[in-house]
């Protein structure tokens, strides 16, 4: 019985793209890594699909330009996600929505919960967080990065990452609490 032929590794596909401009190799890399990249940047930009698609496209452009310098010490997908994070930050900064690093003690911005139910969807709650807090929360609590890694990626101090995570979690919990009482008060 013959063993199944292993898939072409990312490294080989990247070589084919670099050396021959191989479109099929790129499409294979794209299909392997884009779903995860897209979901990640979609959360970072706060759920705006159009923005996320722009970020994904720009990420691939930058990644293919930087590919000759990639040393393959990390997984291709992880490297790509790092580029995606930078591109997403650039977009948020351009839109005036990126506020890291925040000064210690900066009050949490009030984000009203959705009015279409007792609890709002977790994704929606994450999207409602301020961009910087959202990025830290996604990187730490969803993607599993440490504060040191987050600090390095976002160009902030590890302490800032911790405080932003604390703010983000508090805001998230508040948004996910039932809103009956608040509604009655406003009624």
């Amino acid at each position, binding site marked *: 019985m013959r063993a199944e032929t292993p898939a072409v590794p990312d490294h080989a596909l990247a070589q084919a*793209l670099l050396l*021959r*401009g*191989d*479109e099929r190799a*790129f*499409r294979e890399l*794209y*299909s392997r890594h*884009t*779903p*995860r990249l*897209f*979901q*990640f940047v*979609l959360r970072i930009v706060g759920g705006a*699909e159009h923005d*996320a*698609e722009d970020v*994904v*496209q720009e990420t*691939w*452009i930058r990644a*293919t*330009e930087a590919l000759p310098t990639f040393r393959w010490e990390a997984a291709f997908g*992880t490297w790509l996600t790092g580029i995606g994070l930078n591109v997403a930050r650039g977009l948020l900064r351009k839109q005036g929505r990126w506020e890291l690093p925040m000064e210690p003690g900066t009050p949490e911005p009030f984000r009203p919960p959705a009015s279409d139910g007792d609890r709002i969807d*977790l*994704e929606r709650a994450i999207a409602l967080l301020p961009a910087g807090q959202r990025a830290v*929360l996604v990187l*730490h*609590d*969803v*993607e*599993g*990065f*440490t*504060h040191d*890694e987050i600090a390095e990626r976002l160009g902030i101090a590890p302490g800032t990452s*911790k405080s932003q*995570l*604390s703010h983000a*979690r*508090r805001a*998230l*919990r508040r948004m*996910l609490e039932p809103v009956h009482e608040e509604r009655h008060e406003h009624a």
Partner: protein
Amino acid sequence: MSTPDLHDDDELPPELRSALQDLPRERQPGRLLEERTVRALREHGVIEAAAPRRGIRRLPASWLGGAVAASLALFASGIAVGQWMGTRATAEVVSAVQAENSRNTAMLVQQTGTAYVQALSKLATTRDSGAHAAQGREVAVRMLRAAADELVRIAPDDPVASAVLAGFQKADTTKAAAGDKQRVVWF
């Protein structure tokens, strides 16, 4: 990426931590994003630009003979018909081509193809071995080459046309090495 810092866990209820970790990690972007990205990479020169389209569609094998005859006939018509069928027939041929009527063109292909072959047949039987015969042969060969070139444009993967062109290229190399000169002025 590694295990998140444990000291932050006291701020996150277990159910919320679990919900964050269970969030989907992949999501498919819009279908057009891939094409958009490929186009952008092509413009950046990362992906090899597609070869100029040499044919609109690939013809089935059964069309091969007809396509060969059609191409030969179309490109031979100017000379062969002019020499052997007279001015009136040529005018009809040109008129039919300009009409871009596929049915007329198909009939024209048959007529002029036959005329071309008949012309060659007559050329083969002529007793004249002087300059006129040589010129006739050269014209016939050049028509054949032009027809094969057109056929390759119609059906880029056609092995017969490709082989004919390859033969011509080989002959060119041989002629160039021998210092052979063209006898007629091409128009």
